[in-house]
């Protein structure tokens, strides 16, 4: 049973866009507080549906969402709690992803680690945030959500699920939303550097080690540019440019994979 007090506090996070000043509206006698709470609960259940988990203690959910832009300035006291939750959620996420990957794939340890890095990276978590509707919901402003905040909120949400429902509940969420992306990463070896992928393919198919040659360099005070050519034997396969050698070689390798249709 959730007390009215908690639900009222929660209102600040879960309120719909446009209903900013609560007291004004009630003075005008517009919408009754009952409706507000009902509407809010509906949105909460929408999020819970996407997450696939129903919180028994809403306070956890509230803390997990405290860093979202609409809650800022109102739930100051919860920010520290939110960061603590994110700290826990980060560890929970990593452990569950690693365990899942170890069960699914026979890859050696360092590759498991690399696959994990892709799955728990900020852009990935920001995608998850969009999938569960944090971006378009009443929690975000019209400008949307910064990737950093979105990713942190997903981690905090995982911490909240873990605290409220335990390991199993957190595992189900992560399996459904995050681990399902692993197969793509593994099948296409996306967790490897493009240069590494190109070299392996070239060695396997043609038994040749590819080489990179510098084809142009320009350096001004504020920027530098390097152009690399990717060669198999003496034949040029692709080229790439970038501000440093690493970026240029990655681009060249990606172009090379495309040109050889090894993807």
């Amino acid at each position, binding site marked *: 049973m959730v007390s009215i007090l908690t639900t009222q506090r929660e209102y600040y996070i879960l309120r719909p866009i446009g209903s900013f000043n609560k007291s004004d509206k009630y003075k005008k006698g517009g919408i009754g507080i009952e409706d507000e709470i009902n509407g809010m609960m509906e949105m909460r259940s929408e999020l819970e549906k996407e997450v696939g988990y129903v919180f028994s203690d809403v306070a956890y959910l509230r803390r997990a969402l405290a860093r979202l832009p609409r809650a800022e300035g109102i739930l100051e006291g919860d920010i*520290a709690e939110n*960061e*603590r939750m*994110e*700290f*826990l959620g*980060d*560890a*929970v996420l*990593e*452990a569950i*992803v*690693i*365990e899942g990957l*170890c*069960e699914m794939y*026979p890859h*050696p*340890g*360092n590759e*498991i*680690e690399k696959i994990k890095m892709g799955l728990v990276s900020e852009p990935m978590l920001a995608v998850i945030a969009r999938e569960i509707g944090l971006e378009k919901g009443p929690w975000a402003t019209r400008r949307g959500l910064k990737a950093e905040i979105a990713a942190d909120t997903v981690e905090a949400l995982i911490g909240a699920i873990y605290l409220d429902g335990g*390991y199993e509940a957190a595992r189900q969420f992560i399996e459904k939303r995050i681990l399902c992306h692993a197969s793509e990463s593994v099948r296409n070896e996306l967790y490897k550097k493009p240069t590494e992928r190109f070299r392996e393919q070239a060695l396997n198919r043609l038994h040749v080690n590819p080489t990179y040659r510098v084809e142009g360099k320009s350096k001004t005070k504020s920027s530098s540019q390097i152009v690399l050519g990717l060669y198999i034997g003496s034949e040029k396969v692709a080229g790439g440019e970038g501000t440093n050698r690493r970026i240029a070689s990655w681009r060249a390798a990606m172009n090379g994979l495309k040109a050889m249709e090894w993807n």
Partner: protein
Amino acid sequence: MELKGGANVGQATIEEVPMRESLEHKLGFAIENKWLLREAMVSGAYKAEHQDSEPVSNERLEVKGRAFMKLFVAEYLFRNLPEREGGMTKLRSALTDWKMLVQVADELGLEEHIVMGSDEKRDSIVNRQRSKAIALRALVGAIYQDRGCETARQFVVENIISHLDEAREKPPGQTAADRFKCEAERRMGLVPKYRLNGKRNTGKKKRIVVELCLGGSVVAEGEGKRRSAAERSAARKGLRAMGWD
């Protein structure tokens, strides 16, 4: 019985862990799957040397153990300390850095059970310490897989989190370079710079030499295997040269 670790029971050539019983005595419980325990104690270097007879090493278990060690420590800190996120992160890294892991491994007397490669046995103390830390992580992974979450958690609480007070007293993880920069800015308002002064090749070993400059004049010179190591030694010498330590 299914073996997720990848060890093959049918392979009779695999031996058990050296002095398994004494290891289990140290742990206070037995690991049912002996091959798992063996896997946790075989270093990657040994596997590389004995590719025909040794199908596994502790790499995978290490990854698993590291993740769950992180989780258990994080959860303990979260539930028991009022610290903010930054404080907890510092404490966690102090509890799980390799120095602490080596210390814990030594307390457990893990070294005699590790199946090491010949390099690790003979070579520098650093390699041996590294394999001790790795074996400890892998052991946590093996306990988790064999005895379940709660036993593994208890193991981590008893052996690692018990050093919480030490971790708290550890000087904040400031490197010599950080300290030098702080002092230079405070006392002289200058930002120190590191300049590569050359690579020395003495026989097989590559050495990198770095100069530490402060406002155009060279304060100290450091040398090391990698640039980071060279900078660290330069900063340490710089602190001494300026009398700031």
